[in-house]
């Protein structure tokens, strides 16, 4: 038994080294490597006729690495060995639509593209646009292997990290990623719109297809053998199904009305659970779909609209003119209730995204210990100590995340059920009936 644990430990240790080998080989290293890499850069720059002031060896930045790994991407990388190109659908108001495959970027180390296409470049897995004059806006352009640099700039009193791409000896500013997450992860709508089928979208489609497949199979086995004890996938899903019905739907919505909302609750539960667990699979892209504020925003909006479109008279009465309390408190309470109307979906959105993203960040930070202790790869003893510390911590965190995946899916469902229940509840006593 002890022996087996040791073997599992060793396997994980090897896997982690593989997973971060990319980080290891480019960011940090012995002087020998620095020389070779600067030689490569030199030869690159000579090709383009430029001076070699480009630095490859940057100190390890745990926060930036974590943010990069939890963000959405335009290429699906599995262990940096397999890179699945995804379709790019980009729209710029001044330029029109551009549709091509992200395979054209020829993704390399750090998920940086070696080619620019129609004025778009791939940097750290996501697409950026170059709007400055002089950068080619048509067709494929070779920009080389280490073409990207970062600079810190002051913007409205804050320090902002801006990326630059080097082409023909001149540096061009990259527009930030175009995302809807309110700029929290360095996004916001910039000079272009990104409608691409990204890594997160692909994961969502995969998980949805998988869920449809297992539920079709389960439904079929119920039809074929209605009077037999469940087995296989059926036996796994039936308790969860009954749990959602008996512990979530019926107590919160009511025995006579729950059937209308039960499919919604089950869909939310299995969709969130499936994506939470999908993101936990090590070395399989580790997509952070439910940890993405945009995805949870859509889920929360769905719940918000369903709750408010199904709201009965009593529900609106309790928001705008709470019965059975003194009149002078009523407007005050109405203000609070109207705020609550929007805070409810807001917390729904933030709770799920925060918990899942925090779990991913914690795992990435623990793995980052290897590079912090190892002094970005220059101190081997420190690296070994870091690895020995990082593996048990990571395994522990992954076990916790497994529980969190279930709890967050359950909490999202139970809160959705309680909001729906509050909206459709009908009081059987007449209003203002002092009792």
């Amino acid at each position: 038994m002890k022996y087996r644990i040791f073997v599992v430990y060793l396997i994980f240790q090897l896997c982690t080294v593989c997973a971060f080998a990319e980080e290891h080989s480019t960011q940090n290293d012995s002087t020998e490597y620095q020389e070779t890499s600067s030689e490569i850069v030199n030869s690159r720059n000579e090709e383009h006729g430029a001076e070699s002031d480009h630095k490859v060896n940057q100190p390890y930045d745990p926060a930036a690495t974590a943010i990069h790994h939890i963000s959405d991407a335009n290429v699906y990388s599995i262990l940096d060995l397999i890179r699945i190109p995804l379709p790019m659908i980009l729209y710029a108001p001044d330029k029109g639509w551009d549709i091509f495959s992200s395979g054209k970027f020829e993704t390399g180390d750090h998920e940086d593209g070696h080619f620019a296409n129609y004025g778009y470049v791939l940097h750290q897995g996501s697409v950026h646009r170059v709007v400055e004059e002089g950068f080619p806006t048509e067709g494929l352009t070779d920009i080389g292997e280490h073409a990207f640099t970062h600079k810190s700039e002051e913007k409205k009193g804050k320090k902002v990290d801006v990326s630059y791409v080097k082409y023909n000896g001149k540096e061009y500013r990259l527009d930030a990623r175009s995302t809807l997450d309110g700029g929290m992860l360095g996004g916001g709508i910039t000079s272009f719109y990104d409608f691409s089928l990204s890594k997160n979208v692909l994961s969502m489609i995969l998980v949805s297809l998988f869920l449809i497949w297992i539920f079709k199979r389960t439904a079929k086995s119920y039809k074929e053998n209605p009077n037999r004890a469940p087995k296989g996938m059926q036996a796994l899903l039936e308790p969860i199904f009954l749990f959602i019905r008996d512990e979530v739907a019926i107590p919160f919505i009511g025995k006579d009305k729950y059937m209308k909302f039960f499919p919604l609750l089950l869909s939310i539960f299995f969709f969130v659970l499936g994506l939470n667990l999908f993101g936990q699979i090590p070395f399989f892209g580790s997509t952070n779909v439910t940890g993405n504020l945009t995805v949870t925003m859509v889920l929360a909006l769905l719940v918000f609209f369903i709750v408010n479109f199904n709201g009965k008279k009593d529900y609106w009465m309790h928001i705008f003119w709470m019965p059975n309390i003194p009149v002078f408190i009523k407007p005050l309470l109405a203000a609070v209730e109207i705020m609550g109307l929007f805070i409810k979906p807001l917390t729904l959105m933030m709770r799920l995204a925060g918990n899942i993203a925090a779990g991913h960040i914690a795992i990435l930070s623990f793995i980052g210990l290897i590079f912090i202790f190892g002094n970005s790869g220059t101190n081997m003893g420190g690296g070994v100590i870091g690895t020995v510390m990082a593996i048990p911590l990571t395994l522990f965190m992954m076990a916790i995340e497994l529980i969190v995946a279930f709890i967050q899916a359950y909490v999202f469902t139970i809160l959705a059920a309680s909001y729906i229940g509050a909206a459709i509840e009908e009081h059987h006593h007449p209003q203002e009936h002092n009792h």
Partner: protein
Amino acid sequence: MTGTLAAVGAGLAVIGVGIGIGMVGGKAVEAIARQPEAAGDIRAVMLLMAAFVEGAGLIAILLSIFMAG
């Protein structure tokens, strides 16, 4: 400087949430010990309340992240 202050703020928010969730969990365990037959209901309410407390904490933490960024 703002980054450091924001980090301190996030830490302070977590103290409050920790106390809150600890109380919810502790009282729920007491309640289940007193009335084991109601364990299912108590657990559901406990998770719901913990989620509300956590929601307040998450808003504080996200606010501090925005301030830091």
